[in-house]
């Protein structure tokens, strides 16, 4: 009898724990949207999303975030170009070609990369990539290319970790079957195992995109942060996240609302990315 009571109580405890995360996401949604949507409606959705001028301190102030939207997209796209080939090739190597002793070093190294705080990546880039850029490109060395290279590195652990486990999850019979038909090890891996892991690999890329678009503290240090349309790799860029972190401390009134509205846009971006991730994962499961 006593056991049953306890069981019931503990069931409740577990249920409440499970609800917490759901509740948190609902509350975040409500607060972000309640804070940002009134401003967007007031200022005008198209002026806000497609306005090319962000100058909150001018009179009259203008709050157009198109430069930041394009900045986020450009930097993320660049990071994908840099990070995805390296990431996927590394994961294939780690899963199928890597000697055991090397794997023992590589795996913890990749995990460590994922655990390094982003501000540390930022300092690394400020001390290492920025001076090199300054030498080769000129100017301050803080430009879109610097941000792209850094983000390309930062998304590697996400892509490598997930891709490797999805390659390893491919049933071994695929590989042995291919070998039995006379294919070489390389051919079996590249033509049979990797295609079978396709949905997992694509998912890893999408999570990488999510990481790149949401990255803040590292980017704010090295991107230059000019609110201008990204026209050249050698010019500075400002992303949605850095726009918020750069100005939130000083903002009040309409300016503050505009920054929360920026967060709404970012939130919608992340919803789209995660939605795509879920759809691809579901397709893969079928």
């Amino acid at each position: 009898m006593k056991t049953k009571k306890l069981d019931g109580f503990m069931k409740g405890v577990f249920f409440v724990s499970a609800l917490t995360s759901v509740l948190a996401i609902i509350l975040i949604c409500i607060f972000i949207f309640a804070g940002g949507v009134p401003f967007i409606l007031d200022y005008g959705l198209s002026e806000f999303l497609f306005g090319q001028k962000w100058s909150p301190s001018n009179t009259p102030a203008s709050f157009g975030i198109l430069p930041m939207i394009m900045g986020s997209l450009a930097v993320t796209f660049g990071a994908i170009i840099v990070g995805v080939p390296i990431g996927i090739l590394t994961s294939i190597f780690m899963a199928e070609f890597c000697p055991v002793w090397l794997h023992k070093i590589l795996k913890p190294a990749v995990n460590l990369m994922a655990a390094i705080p982003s501000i540390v990546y930022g300092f690394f880039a400020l001390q290492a990539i920025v001076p090199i850029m300054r030498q080769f490109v000129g100017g301050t060395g803080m430009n879109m290319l610097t941000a792209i290279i850094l983000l390309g590195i930062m998304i590697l652990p996400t892509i490598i970790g997930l891709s490797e486990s999805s390659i390893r999850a491919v049933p071994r019979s695929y590989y042995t079957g291919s070998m039995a038909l006379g294919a070489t090890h390389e051919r079996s891996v590249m033509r049979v195992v990797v295609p079978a892991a396709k949905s997992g690999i694509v998912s890893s890329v999408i999570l990488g995109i999510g990481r790149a678009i949401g990255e803040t503290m590292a980017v704010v240090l090295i991107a230059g942060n000019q609110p201008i349309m990204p026209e050249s790799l050698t010019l500075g860029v400002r992303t949605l996240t850095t726009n918020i972190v750069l100005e939130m401390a000083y903002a009040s009134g309409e300016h503050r609302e505009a920054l929360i509205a920026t967060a709404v846009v970012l939130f919608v971006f992340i919803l789209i990315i995660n939605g795509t991730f879920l759809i691809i994962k579901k397709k893969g499961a079928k």
Partner: protein
Amino acid sequence: MKLKNSRLMLTIAFAFILTACGPVVEEESITAVGSSALQPLVEAAGEQYGAENVGKFINVQGGGSGTGLSQIAADAVEIGNSDIFAEEKDGIDASKLVDHRVAVVGITPIVTPGTGVTDVSIEELQKIFTGKITNWSELGGKDLPITVLNRASGSGTRATFEQWVLEEGQNSIITQEQESSGTVRQIVANTPGTISYVAFSYVNDDVEALTINGVEPTDENVKTNEWLIWSYEHMYTHGEPTGLTKEFIDYIMSDDIQATLIGALGYIPTSQMEVERDVEGNTVPVE
């Protein structure tokens, strides 16, 4: 086994609940939020005050002048710290706020050493920050392009600098922006030809402070208003302060703190100013 496990969990759950109940002691505390430029001073003064008055705590948080002003306007904290007048900030109802000017901060343009320029006029600064002068050679320096670095929009340091350097209605060129004075100093130190501005206390050997019309950026010149680019550090209260809030502000304004701590941390004591300035920037001499 199952029973044992659930008992264990129950014990842990209760342990968590019980740790929330500490002993009840008579304690008093207030919270000061806002300006990161003023934060070191309020923190140091708060610690000293807490050490001298047992059981009284001053919680100090950063967050920027905007945060300080909106929090104090909403009456959510006891003290709101700001680099700028509440009247200057949009969306802040300044009528209920009481201003306590605890210190003065001077702001100076800084450049990377080696530009060949050490003195500029206000007009030249204006042209640099509006993008009309783009090379140091136009000012008699080296043939080196000028890179302008701004603080983020809304920063108190930037607002003060632009108020005294740019003309009414003029806007700075769209350029690099950084969120803190420390980062600004580092970038200026490392990037040839860069110009920006920081509070006096941030100037070190890595960067070069410019003189303006031959006037050096020193505390003495700020006190006499010969150096124009300075601002008050405000501690705002919602209505006249009472209780611990009043005691703490009186403490910071006391001759003792004004004479020791404020100078030691790189601020200028308000009591030593020979001029007084209002929101519009008009100055009157203090007798």
